[in-house]
């Protein structure tokens, strides 16, 4: 048998995934693969982050990092909450504006085209700038077009730590804190165009000490800004709060141990072709590093934010959350993955079952488990009744492309019984990055449609993503 990694599924997602008829009807109507999103859950996740902020008496806005999912329903549902949105392209900005988020609730981040920058400035959203030249370009545009002063945040990078040296991956983004003079100069020169709102960081890491060092670095930069006569109001701590994907830590521990054993040749492989996910056997020793997302995480999402805010500043010996508050700053965040926890699933139809290989009508771009290194089992949603002799099996999952590499996951996954053509395999909790982040239309295979579903009394209602508005189908509630 293949060791299992059961996904953590709860609340509404659990309930709709248990509604087998609904799921089959959706796929029968709209084909496989099919993305399912639950907009109401996003609102709940926003509240959880806000609750953590409030526990520290902190003001600030939760900006949903749009890049994690393209769904319109999710963004339109977001508009009904107190949250904002972090947009990283011209398309995302237009999408957010069209979904009903006003400019005051939009933060434009990432590398920016001229057009993106212009629309951001024209509509008056906050610009999270990556560099000094970007600020200069923005200021020039504001002056040339007679636009109103733009609220800007400056992304910083290269934070130093005190005591120990906390090493961090080099980042292509942000103004290095070792030399902020050019930043102060551009803000000073363009006072009439740029309204400095505060310092920001986003670190691509799950390492808490790195983030603590970054937050502390932002506090220092803000103090410097005040000394220079600016009045910054907020620090933006970016995203990267993480998701716990698995129901049971013991399964994760057991699986990684089994993988170690398999790589060392002590047990039969548990992956396609003995793939080691970064681990190698060199003369009986284990080498390399396990290059996968830590699928089980005891501390993720709002709890991770809580840990960060509770971490004591090494310089001031006081929790970072208290320091931010003491300085009267707001704390903004840009969670993507963590806000989409339990917000969706990808449904795929089984096409063929042959020699322990299950082929589904989807490919590894539609369900991007491998590309993001997230390891978890699919859920089998059978069409017919089980046969009496059906028992658990371990299978490999192949996609619908004619590429040897097109495996939905390289793990061998356990299923409670052998799947048959027409059954569904459901990849739960995939709304953040694993759903449509990289989906294309290779081989002219169909790209997934997306449906949004919501509770209606004891039932589920659903519609195409682009048809979803927070009021549609809920006329009775006014």
């Amino acid at each position: 048998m293949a060791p299992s990694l059961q996904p953590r599924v709860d609340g509404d997602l659990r309930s709709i995934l248990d509604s087998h008829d609904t799921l089959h009807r959706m796929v029968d109507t709209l084909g496989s693969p099919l993305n399912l999103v639950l907009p109401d859950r996003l609102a709940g996740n926003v509240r959880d982050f806000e609750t953590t902020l409030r526990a520290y008496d902190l003001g600030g806005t939760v900006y949903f990092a749009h890049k994690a999912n393209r769904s319109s329903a999710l963004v339109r549902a977001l508009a009904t909450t107190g949250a904002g949105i972090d947009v990283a392209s011209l398309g995302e900005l237009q999408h957010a504006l069209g979904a009903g988020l006003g400019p005051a609730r939009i933060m434009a981040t990432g590398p920016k085209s001229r057009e993106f920058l212009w629309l951001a400035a024209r509509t008056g959203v906050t610009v999270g700038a990556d560099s000094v030249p970007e600020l200069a370009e923005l200021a020039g545009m504001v002056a040339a077009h007679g636009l109103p002063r733009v609220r800007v945040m400056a992304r910083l990078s290269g934070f130093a730590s005190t005591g120990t040296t906390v090493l961090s991956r080099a980042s292509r983004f942000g103004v290095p804190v070792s030399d902020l003079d050019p930043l102060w100069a551009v803000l000073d020169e363009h006072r009439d165009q740029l309204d400095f709102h505060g310092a920001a960081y986003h670190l691509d890491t799950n390492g808490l000490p790195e983030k603590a060092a970054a937050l502390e670095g932002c506090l220092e930069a803000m103090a410097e800004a005040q000394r220079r006569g600016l009045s910054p109001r907020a620090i933006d701590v970016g995203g990267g709060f993480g998701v716990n994907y698995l129901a049971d830590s013991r399964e994760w521990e057991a699986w990684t141990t089994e993988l170690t054993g398999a790589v060392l040749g002590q047990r039969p492989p548990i992956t396609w072709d003995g793939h080691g996910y970064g681990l190698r056997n060199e003369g009986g020793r284990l080498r390399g590093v396990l290059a996968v997302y830590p699928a089980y995480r005891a501390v993720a999402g709002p709890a991770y934010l809580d840990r960060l805010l509770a971490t004591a500043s090494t310089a001031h010996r006081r929790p970072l959350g208290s320091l931010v508050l003491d300085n009267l700053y707001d704390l903004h965040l840009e969670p993507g993955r963590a806000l989409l926890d339990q917000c969706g699933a990808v449904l795929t139809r089984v096409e063929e079952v042959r020699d322990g290989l299950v082929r589904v009508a989807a490919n590894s771009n539609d369900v991007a488990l491998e590309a993001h290194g997230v390891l978890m089992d699919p859920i089998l949603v059978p069409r017919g009744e089980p046969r009496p002799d059906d028992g658990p099996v371990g299978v490999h999952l192949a996609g619908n492309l004619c590429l040897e590499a097109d495996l939905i996951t390289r793990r061998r996954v356990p299923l409670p019984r052998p799947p048959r053509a027409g059954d569904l395999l459901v990849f739960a909790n995939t709304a953040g990055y694993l759903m449509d982040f990289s989906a294309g239309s290779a081989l002219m295979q169909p790209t997934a449609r997306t449906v949004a579903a919501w509770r209606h009394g004891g039932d589920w209602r659903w519609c195409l993503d682009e048809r979803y508005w927070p009021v549609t189908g809920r006329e009775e509630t006014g």
Partner: protein
Amino acid sequence: MRYDSVTDIIGDTPLVRIDEAVHGLRHIDLYAKMELYNPFGSVKDRAAWNMVRHRLADAADRGDTVVELSSGNTAKALAVIAGMHGLAFRSVTNRMRIPEVKDLLLLLGAQIDELPGRSECLDPADTDDPLTRMYHTVSAAGGGYLHTDQYFNDLNVQAHLRGTGPEIIADLGGRAPDYFIACVGTAGSSTGVARALRRHDPNVTVVGLVAGKSDFIPGIRDIDEVHEVGLFDPQVYDTIEAVSSDEAIDGLLTLVRRCGTLAGPTGGGAYQGAVRYLRGVDAELTERRTAVFIVCDRVESYLSYLRERRPELFRQPARAHSVRTLTGDELAAARTVDVAGAREWIEQEQPLIVDLRSPFAYRALHLDGSVNIVDDLFEEMLRGGLPFSRRRPVLLVCPVGEKSARYAALLTRMGHPDARSLSGGVIAWRDAGAELVRD
């Protein structure tokens, strides 16, 4: 006893019997090998010294930096030895998880580099693992480093094959023990001792102890991690068992409270793992047997580790005058004053304004004329009684008026007649457009 150098004290540690009344084994004499007696405090002094002693002169000539992947005792020993020989020491680690050890290393003059965490947006094609890269840098010949490489260096094993193991045999009157139990970190001590004992008597049973996954016992590895260790050879151990941090702390408490042995967590883990294993054996025995476990280091460095896991061990006496003891009624009765009222009051009566925020924030902006006493410190001061006259009114301020209300209630309880809290705090003050200054 006179020595020419402190490094001459390394090794020759005592072997001490554990009282049967404590361990309860009826047929087994259980001994602790007291590695905590080494001069820098642990079993790793032997390995550290053995890995560098013959290379120090050359390294000093070249001005090399001693470097090791260690977050604990090896780093401590190497930092001391490097310092004695005028060399710099650099410790590379995933995480310094024990604050006392970190501070001690900084005190010893070590540079500590902590490796970055995992990427949140993982790119599985990225093979640029920071640890591997670091390893290549410090291992390159002529790169300016003396890399001791404890996980792969056979001199680590040799230190125990030549020292620790033969010492045990000598102290047992020329006999090897029947059982040897040790925690596995680099596997150096357990491998070296096991080889020495088996040379003497091939029938010795060797038990290796590792941590459970997702558990943490500073100094040792978990069952998967041991496979990354170059020195680890599964053949050395008759059995490998997991020991939990809970058991390690139980064992530590037994050694510390009942055996006069101030052992750290791995000493406690080795004791507890030994007794757990031997209890099964003991039941079947009719003749006497001997067992030895290693006490690797001392307890003092792990107080915060213990406090985190067993706060009840550090019972503190109830504090007088603490905001934590305020009742709901006392809180509700706290006097508050809004921004407009406060401005008037300040104008008329010049209350003492106490700003409870951090000095860092106070320095940036504050109410004119206020004094800054950060809340932690204020709480300390109040323990001794009121730090100012009852005749002087007091205005307490904090960011949102929440903490200040509690301290106003506390001052009232302590008999101050006019302590008020600025409602809405400095944020409300700022938002009302009232003046804030920096000096």
